[in-house]
């Protein structure tokens, strides 16, 4: 079947089999390989992207379900090629990544959680960040610097 959507601001359309997962559509058909697959059970969060502004695990959604949606992957998070999203800057400045494999999913989850809290006018505490990260696994950092990165990214996002 032919599936069309807007990915990182561009209209795309591909002929794929109907059981194609969104993450396969993104990685194998669009060749956007920043979105990763780290498990088979929707536990690790390496595949998180935004669909119509909401963070979702792209291994858990059929590409067909995203027909017509606006999808943002880590490649499309910054405003332009020469720019970084404040959350990306925060991860770099706080050493929030080591091997980098979980990082795209962490950043996509982080931007979503901060946007949600800020839209509700709620402060995002360390406890809240740790709780919100329950769907993202990192094996390298012990989360200490990821939590710091997200708190810093949150303050950077308010000042943008």
């Amino acid at each position: 079947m032919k599936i069309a959507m807007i990915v990182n601001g561009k209209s795309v359309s591909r002929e794929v089999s109907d059981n194609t997962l969104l993450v396969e559509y993104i990685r194998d058909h669009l060749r956007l390989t920043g979105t990763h697959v780290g498990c088979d059970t929707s536990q690790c969060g390496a595949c998180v992207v935004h669909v119509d502004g909401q963070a979702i695990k792209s291994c858990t959604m059929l590409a067909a379900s995203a027909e017509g949606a606006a999808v943002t992957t880590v490649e499309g998070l910054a405003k332009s090629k020469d720019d970084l999203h404040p959350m990306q800057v925060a991860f770099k400045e706080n050493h929030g990544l080591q091997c980098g494999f979980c990082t795209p999913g962490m950043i996509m989850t982080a931007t979503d959680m901060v946007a949600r809290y800020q839209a509700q006018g709620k402060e995002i505490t360390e406890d809240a960040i740790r709780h919100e990260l329950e769907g993202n696994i990192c094996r390298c950092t012990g989360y200490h610097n990821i939590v710091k990165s997200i708190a810093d990214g949150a303050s950077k996002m308010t000042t943008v």
Partner: protein
Amino acid sequence: MSEGIGARVLRKEDKRFITGKGRYTDDIVEANQAYAAFVRSPHAHARIIAIDTSAAMAIEGVETVLMGPELVADGIGNIICGWGVTSKDGSAMNMGAWSALATDKVRYVGDAVAIVVADSKSIAKLAAEAVVVTYEELPVVVGSVQALAKGAPQLHDNAPGNLIFDWEIGDLAPTDAALATAAHVTEMDITNNRLAPNPMEPRSAIATFNEAEDHYTLYTTSQNPHVARLVLSAFYNVAPEHKLRVIAPDVGGGFGSKIYIYPEEIACLWAAMKSGRSIKWTSDRTEAFLTDAHGRDHVSTAKIGFDKDGMIVGLKVDTKANLGAYMSLFSSAVPTYLYATLLSGQYNIANIYCNVQAVYTNTVPVDAYRGAGRPEACYVIERLMETAAREMGMDPSELRAKNFVTSFPHQTPVIMAYDSGDFAANQKQAQDAADVAGFAARKAEAASRGKLRGLGYSNYIEACGIAPSAAVGSLGAGVGLWESAEVRVNPVGTIEILTGSHSHGQGHETTFAQIVAERFGLPTENIQIVHGDTDKVQFGMGTYGSRSGAVGMSAIVKAMDKVEAKVKKIAAHVLEAGEDDIVIEGGAVKVAGTDKQMLWHEVGLAAYTAHNIPAGMEPGLKESAFYDPTNFTFPAGCYICEVEVDPDTGVTEVVQFVASDDFGTIINPMIVEGQVHGGIAQGIGQAMLENVVYDDAGQQLSASYMDYTMPRADDLPNYSVHHASTTCPGNPLGMKGCGEAGAIGSPPAVINAITDAIGNNNLSMPATPAAVWTALQDVRSKLAAE
């Protein structure tokens, strides 16, 4: 801001990872690429009676299905263990045959039986399920103690009683004598639970065969691509080394599990040759649990004796090490030379004896996982010390301090010669940071909320920077453990460092550039680190055992020494000065005490134009070095963990975790702290959450993230990380290594804290709420009975 040694330089490699531009193996697509899936044994122990591939071959898009007998007929060799360990009776270890694809028997659930190659991953998986294998099931054994018992099922004909080796270290008679006359003896049964390493990037491989050139290329998730090529070539006969290029691009974590050469890479290379297709295989997560080498799995009994003043007189340990169904690449070294040689801990112990029996079972092969033997040793000695202190009514930190090694070098009775350290300084720093003095008040406050608060120590020492090649050779290693480096100064003065070390999260692209920046006064942006490709980089040994600083960077230093010498010669010649008067600083090469100088890039250009260099000098500016360590290095430290236990539920929270480490020279504190954070998280994971569980039939019950408890953000605290360092005398930068310390030092601190809180020393890892609650009930019913 300085970018040299000691600076918190932000990582050069980060931009590609935070923007999704990393290049991991599975991101790569080769022309004419097919996909592989493996037919795996559903049984833990069975004889293969027949394999029917007809249904699989009939599926559209299936290229081929290949099996073990054909692999063996093509001369592909068995997978080997590269470290020979000799039993105490002088006999060699009993290595059972391990074919990349099983030929007659399968010995664990997940054992590969056939490789299916198809046009897509989904077709390959479908076809793998359509391969019909007829098995005759055999009796199964999964535990090391059970496998050694009389009448246990036999895994390998050449390993009677499933015994791989029965090895010893130290002196038995004096140790027994010391324990017999000790004023106090503490004896414990200590189990070190089996873990799955779980780097977030699953293993992956892409194999290509170029028929016209008779040449193979393998992209693979490896910590040591040159070692992979050597082993694939010399032992598995896939291709001669000059006909095989191994590339390990961005690798998403390793923790030891990506050191080894697995059946899948071998089978993919062979199938690429057979089918003429490039073949990609990427493990899924359950496959990773079923095939990536596991870690730990020791069952020990240990006895430590003290005189009336609390001085240690002897230590005796008996360990059964479960190595799984086959011997993985370095599996024999982990429970022997990487374990028992560290049993002396930070203490003066005159008499040590350890006996290790390594055992086959119907489980995934076990090999080095972050720490590799040293966490097991640390857990034994640090559980003993804390428990002994409690039994003798002494402060655990005072009992340790009394027994600290304080003069160096210190020869232990178990091979290691500690070269430096100040264990009291680490302990004091950790105690101050943890406010141990205020613990009693915190405990009382917790009690007022109905919580049990406990505090535990772990004073670890480990051996890194492995190691003098001749020394490890004499202990059975099949390889040397040096490292190589090449420093290429380009005609424009920029520098490429080609290193045999491999970065898979450690930040080498930054820290290696920092030592060059420090040496030549150049910005790190002018320095590029090249690694992970056997076509680009000279032979190197790779990254594991916290060796990339102490060994890998030392090789760079040696190569830089040679570059510096040549730079000085050229500058002295051009500037008409004496070589001894030339200094390099701030990106310039100067005649000391004058205003005469050449800029760094002018020297580079002079070397390559060769218009005006000393007579007889070769043009160019490129030097290489191979550095062989003179000793192991000995990182050490003191970890303090504080927990609160809810007595009603057993739920335990780590409320404080303090680390004081001695890593010698630190190049980039930000990266070193990150390494410690990650190591502690894995250690807390082992202590409280993680456990590979098999049922009696050999089925792994913990083979997904729904079942195996990976530590998550809300399971873990922030860490308070400190350094009190002594310089390592053994290498040019004075470095000790920081990659594994966190995982080595933390588990005993956690368990010592929980056992302190609940008042019961008998608690095994992982200390789940159920285990903690049960241990608490045990002690309460005992108290009630009294």
